[in-house]
């Protein structure tokens, strides 16, 4: 199979997945309790006003018709209009997605080098106290919920030591450095969550590679330790870490509701949360589709990187 064919196949599958996702979201949004009009105007609003609003939003039309409208709009690149916000979904989505992307990048830039080096280091010191310490720290950090670690870092770094701003949103017209400065505090709980995961996978695959014949050969033929690690160990151990990182992108991009609430960051997680609460189908479905697309894209990119790093897995390559 050539790379082109592989890519086309995966893309086709991704589109099918996205379509199924849109159907699922639509069905789920039908089950959500409450009525859109009374959610927006409040349950005690005048019944006539609620009915008028529902009619204006087109909610009196059959569900299938509304779904087809939404789906065909999506194909044209039109995300429709939010029920609750009464404005086009596109700009809302773009604004929030860019914010989420920024936070995800800052978190990844911190956690990936840290966790990978910790994983390799722990593997090399396997069984020694430092290995246990690193692994224990990683595991403990992983099980602490974000809202707990979030509050702790706010209290310590934001309020007591006052070294980082609490709000993740930098004032309007801030430069890139200020924006990144504001994102460090919210990135820390994410680093906690992901560090243990990436570190463990890296450690496990590194240990496996360290035990392999070719590493022993490389060591025996007199290569220095650093060269062995760089040329032989990392190259073979990293693909597993890349896969793990890629699968975390979806969560990092669209699943940070708690972090976004706590640090008052208007990312896509928060938008998604509000869309669900308001039963705002166009907004909800658009958010889910974007998060789904990002997830699929990064999984695909992960697979590609995986194969580039490891010729054995390269599609079309000789085994």
């Amino acid at each position, binding site marked *: 199979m050539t790379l082109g064919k592989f890519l086309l196949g995966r893309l086709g599958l991704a589109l099918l997945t996205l379509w199924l996702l849109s159907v699922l979201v639509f069905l789920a949004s039908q089950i*959500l*309790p*409450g*009525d859109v009009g*009374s*959610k*927006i*105007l*409040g*349950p*005690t*609003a*005048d*019944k*006539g*006003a*609620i009915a*008028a*609003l529902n009619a*204006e939003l087109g909610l009196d039309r059959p569900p299938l018709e509304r779904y087809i409208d939404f789906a065909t709009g999506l194909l044209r690149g039109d995300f429709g209009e939010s029920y*609750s*916000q*009464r*404005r086009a979904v596109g700009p*809302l989505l773009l*604004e*929030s997605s860019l914010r989420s992307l920024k936070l995800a990048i800052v978190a990844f830039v911190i956690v990936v080098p840290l966790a990978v080096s910790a994983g390799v280091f722990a593997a090399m010191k396997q069984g020694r106290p430092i290995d246990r310490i690193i692994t224990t720290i990683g595991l403990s950090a992983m099980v602490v919920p974000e809202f707990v670690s979030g509050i702790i870092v*706010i209290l310590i770094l*934001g*309020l007591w030591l*006052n070294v980082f*701003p*609490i*709000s993740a*949103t930098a004032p*309007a017209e801030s430069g890139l450095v200020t924006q990144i400065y504001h994102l460090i505090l919210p990135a820390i709980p994410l680093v906690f969550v992901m560090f243990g995961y990436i570190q463990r996978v890296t450690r496990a695959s590194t240990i496996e590679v360290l035990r392999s014949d070719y590493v022993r050969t490389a060591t025996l033929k007199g290569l220095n330790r650093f060269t062995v690690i760089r040329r032989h160990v990392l190259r073979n151990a990293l693909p597993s870490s890349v896969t793990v990182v890629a699968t975390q992108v979806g969560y990092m991009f669209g699943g940070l509701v708690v972090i*976004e*609430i*706590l*640090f*008052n960051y*208007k990312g896509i997680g*928060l*938008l998604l*949360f*509000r869309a669900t*609460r*308001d*039963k705002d189908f166009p907004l909800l479905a658009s958010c889910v589709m974007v998060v789904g697309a990002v997830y699929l894209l990064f999984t695909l990119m992960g697979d590609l990187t995986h194969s580039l790093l490891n010729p054995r897995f390269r599609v079309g390559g000789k085994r």
Partner: protein
Amino acid sequence: MSWNPLKDSFRHNVSGPANALIDGYLAGRLDRRTFLRQGTVFGLSLSAMGILGVRADAQDGPVAVKKGGTLRVGVTTPSGPVDPMVAANQGSIAMYQPVGEYLIRAEPDLSLRPFLATEWSSNDAGTVWTFKLRDDVTFQDGQKMTSADVVATFNRLADPDGGSIALSAFRGIIGKNSASAIDDLTVQFELERPVGNFPYLASSDTYSAIILPASYSTGFEEAGFPGTGPLRMKSFSPTAGATFVRNEEYWDKANPAPLDQIDFIFFADETPALLALQGSEIDVVYQVSVQNGRAVVNNPAYKMVGTRSAASRPLHLRTDTGPWMDKRVRQALAYTVDRTGVVDGLMQGYAEIGNDSPFAPIFPVTNPDVPQRQLDLDKARALLAEAGVPDGFKTSLNVINTLEVPAYATVLQAGAAKVGIDLDIILQDGGTYYGDGQFGSSPWLDSTAGITDFGHRSIPNVYLTAQFQSDGVWNSSHLNDPEIDKEIGEFLATVEFEAQRKIATSLQEKFMDLTPTIYSAFLQFVFVTGANVGGVVPNSSGQLFLGQAGFVE
């Protein structure tokens, strides 16, 4: 009281209901404060009441604030468009508040303060109300405000087909042609039925009633936030926040906004807003729950301010079916409620005790002499025994999951357990609890018992008609009592204050006797500011007026 030649001529010029109120005060049947508050409703100005020898409370003068500065206010993210016609959430309402002004402003003590209207009065029947407007008001685009703008604003909000958020208050009282211009500065409302408290409906209490230009039809954001207010919109993002700057052309030259700028920062939750306050990233948190605000209550760097209101967490009990059908069982539950505990413990004193009727202590019409229902477990047990359930029973209690309501439900559950009533709490989010708000498909209206969160109204009318009339749209206790229906009708139609209070007293007693709903407390609207902030004026409906806010000297 000494004879005053002005007094008689003055009394010739006021309406029948106003004169009746004056009689009630002079005869000693009304206390001074009730007279002052209710006097403003009938359009008696404080100076006019001064002629009668009534002195207003010595007010704390406005806090001196310095000119300049940027105030940063944390508020809930608007969950809908900024449009007075449809906005029902605090975030959206807060966005038009700095640019909008009302005919009358309802003050924290529910007295009415002239704003864009200078005076108002009614005919004796309370069916025709006339408002005089200030002659120096201009919109932010420089156009003069006239009666045509006021007429258009109210007729738009009251149009039964217009879908406005004010319809729940206006329907049956005013319609799309009820307001008319007598001259450039006089507006007349012809009501569909007599309403003695109509000025409240024309005041900031109807938060959507900011006066907009007659040319305005829809699309507040697109129109650039039109209004007459002391601040103008500079930028607005529906997800992040908004900036308002001083309106240098403000009509009230004596009272320009002290602040250069107000930045609103949107928050999804109050916890991060309170953290941001403590991190000095904002200066004001628009509204907090007492529970979360506790973190800052005892810190002198912050001020937590409570404003009395009629907001409550009524617990309805079905009167037509299920375990609460017998009124003695309902009364028994009411006697298990530790009201002082709710007010002092759960609400930290930011509330006042309720007496199982919607007549909150803040309403002037509420009779404070109706005996207060107290915690009395022996009486509760005796009532249960009389009703044939001496050992109590197990039943479910639907509870809306918002703010302190789940904690309140737990307090009630513990009290009920002491007499053997085992309340099984079913927590439901707002969407599930309210359902579609119709009988038959809403746990709020269908459950045998449920706790709802009700916001403030400055007059009890909507609570009475919607919650307690047999055909009321929110009649969750399914009360069907012809006597109560009749008295509610009389209450609404009565214009004279003392006559209305007499009916209110009878209703208060009937509600206590039948106990279709338990009201243990009426909550305060609470906000927090840094200690260096002054001039923020709250009102009971949960609005902050920031036009005169600033940093203290």
